[in-house]
């Protein structure tokens, strides 16, 4: 329940949660042990908690309808909110490591659902470490899109293994994505952009989209504009570097 009057974290004019009450430290270490609940396996992800209007009961739900888009390191959730109305039939989830940020996104979605009845029912967020727990959320070939927008750069060489795109982690993303599924990456850090592109190019289970395909994909347009980080970069007229690749099947 949202009590706008009594709750200073909710903006009176928009009814939406105010970001400044949900500030958290800028970086979390994805390598540390986690202390938040993780589903034991994808069948234990409780859809009725994430999408209550679509799945009133988790036990009797349609098991064929599954999450198809994942926004990894979703931050304040701008991309999910844009995708929600663009793909109203698709279930999507944001994965975010920082708990305060996750709470903010939860509140934001709840407020949008209240303000726009029937809408924003297909998006949700979970606090999790995507570098460790992707297989706990998604079955093999479950996803059709994965987004990595403005991930933390981890500049130092010895911290490269903390990067959310790496040759090893791509194996797991290839597992979660169906053949034909698409992985979207964008950054304003040139070196990281190079790194992500090179990792994807060198991986046998991914191939780059052609410029026509990029042109035709409505999700590509959101990469630089939909998220808070993207908007910040745009305001500062910063350059961005994107790499968008398709999951292909293994060579026989």
């Amino acid at each position: 329940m949202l009590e706008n009057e009594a709750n200073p974290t909710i903006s009176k004019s928009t009814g939406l949660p105010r970001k400044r009450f949900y500030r958290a430290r800028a970086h979390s270490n994805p390598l540390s042990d986690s202390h938040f609940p993780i589903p034991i396996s994808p069948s234990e992800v409780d859809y009725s908690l994430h999408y209550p209007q679509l799945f009133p009961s988790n036990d009797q739900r349609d098991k064929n309808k599954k999450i198809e888009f994942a926004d990894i390191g979703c931050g304040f959730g701008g991309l999910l909110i844009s995708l929600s109305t663009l793909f109203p039939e698709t279930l999507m989830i944001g994965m975010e490591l920082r708990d305060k940020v996750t709470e903010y996104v939860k509140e934001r979605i709840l407020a949008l659902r209240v303000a726009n009845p029937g809408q924003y029912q297909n998006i949700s967020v979970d606090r999790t470490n995507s570098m460790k727990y992707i297989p706990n959320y998604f079955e093999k070939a479950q996803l059709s899109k994965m987004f990595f927008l403005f991930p933390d750069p981890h500049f130092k060489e010895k911290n490269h293994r903390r990067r959310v795109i790496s040759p090893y982690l791509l194996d797991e993303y290839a597992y979660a994505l169906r053949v034909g599924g698409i992985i979207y990456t964008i950054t304003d850090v040139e070196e990281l952009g190079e790194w992500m592109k090179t990792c994807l190019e060198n991986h046998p289970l991914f191939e780059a989209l052609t410029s026509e395909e990029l042109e035709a994909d409505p999700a590509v347009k959101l990469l630089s504009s939909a998220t808070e980080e993207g908007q910040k970069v745009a305001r500062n007229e910063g350059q961005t570097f994107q790499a968008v690749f398709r999951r292909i099947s293994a060579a026989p």
Partner: protein
Amino acid sequence: MEETPVDEGDTNKDVEVAPALIALHPSENSVAVAVGSDLRVFDLVGNCAVSLVDESGPPYHKDSIRTICYGSKGQLFISAGDDKTVKIWSTESWRCIYNVVSEKRVSAAAISPNGLHVCFADKFGVIWVVDLDGGVDGNQPLVNKKAVSLLSHYCSIITSLKFSLDGRFLVSADRDFKIRVTMFPTKPVNEAHEIQSFCLGHTDFVSCIAFVSNLQCSHGFLISGSGDSTVRLWDILSGSLLDTCEIGDKVELLDSKEREGCHSAVTSLCTIADGALVAVAVQSLHGIILLNCDLSNHTLSVVKVVSISEETFIPTSLSTSCSTGYLWMVTGVSSLHNLGHSSLAHVKVMSGFNKDNSTANDVSVVEDDAIPGGTKLLEKLQGGITFDEKVFLAAAEAVKTAMSNLLTKKQYSIEKRDFRKRTRNDRKLKQ
């Protein structure tokens, strides 16, 4: 240590003791025991102790050995562990023919069924492969080999590594409750990108895995033991959980004292008589639990608990060969600093297993002098034949603590977490 795999930092020797390990040659030609940095091998055919030949000279390992195993053809043997060295031995000459240096401590290792590759896992969750150049010559001089990284469990300690029986898959189990099934590449230098499945269902660290052979399925069925007190049966192609066998209550029946609602972690398991029976070692249990594995019905069920009369014998590792009716057990620990003992090991054998006897009625502990190899073998593998039994209780306790320190997730109180965050070194640098 909140970030165990990242900064190994303050290492307390007493909490890092390593359990004793045992491995049996697939045709029972020899049996090997590792205790601490000591590797001891007894030749069951020649009925004599084996002297290892390693040009790099003794001690062959400079810190605790964490994993030993024979290849399924029996020509190769590997030992590896905390000294970041993997040694590949010829079982014919018992010479060390390959030496591989690892960047990190080694936690698990396996030999491909065709004997052409060795894989090992380090403490950061990276799995490496060594190409043995098409085969082994038992008399070749020692060669230093380089390993190539193959795949990674993101910063999780890998506890067990096994090839499927047909060699098509490499299966790795970790501390984050996960078992990963990876297609083993035909050209292993190309890295292993294709994940066949994840076997998910355990609710605590996975400590051990083993394959059960089956005529209908060339890769075999997988069984796994865990800190969650269960043994589970899996189909590795789909990652489906076929059955879960709770063993916690069986241990409780036998040993009603000292349980503070804690789990009895499964520490070791091995398949007997082609997998119809599975022997399971459990923390605090002086004995083993025998499970029946029925692959036509996809079930795992407890057949019986075989207890060992000495209450101090809590096996730390089990092994058997595919051929005979013996189950080999060892209990022991690398070192107990406070007790002034080093490299304790105690070996026992159970007999009476045979293919048609799924009730395991004839299973019993073999008297020391009736063990194959007799007292000569015990002298070699244990380092002596008489010892103070009580020390083994302390040893079992130390192994238990070490395992939980290594594999169980720490739960910090809020205050403690905040304190840890404030005092973290990587934070300080930034400010």
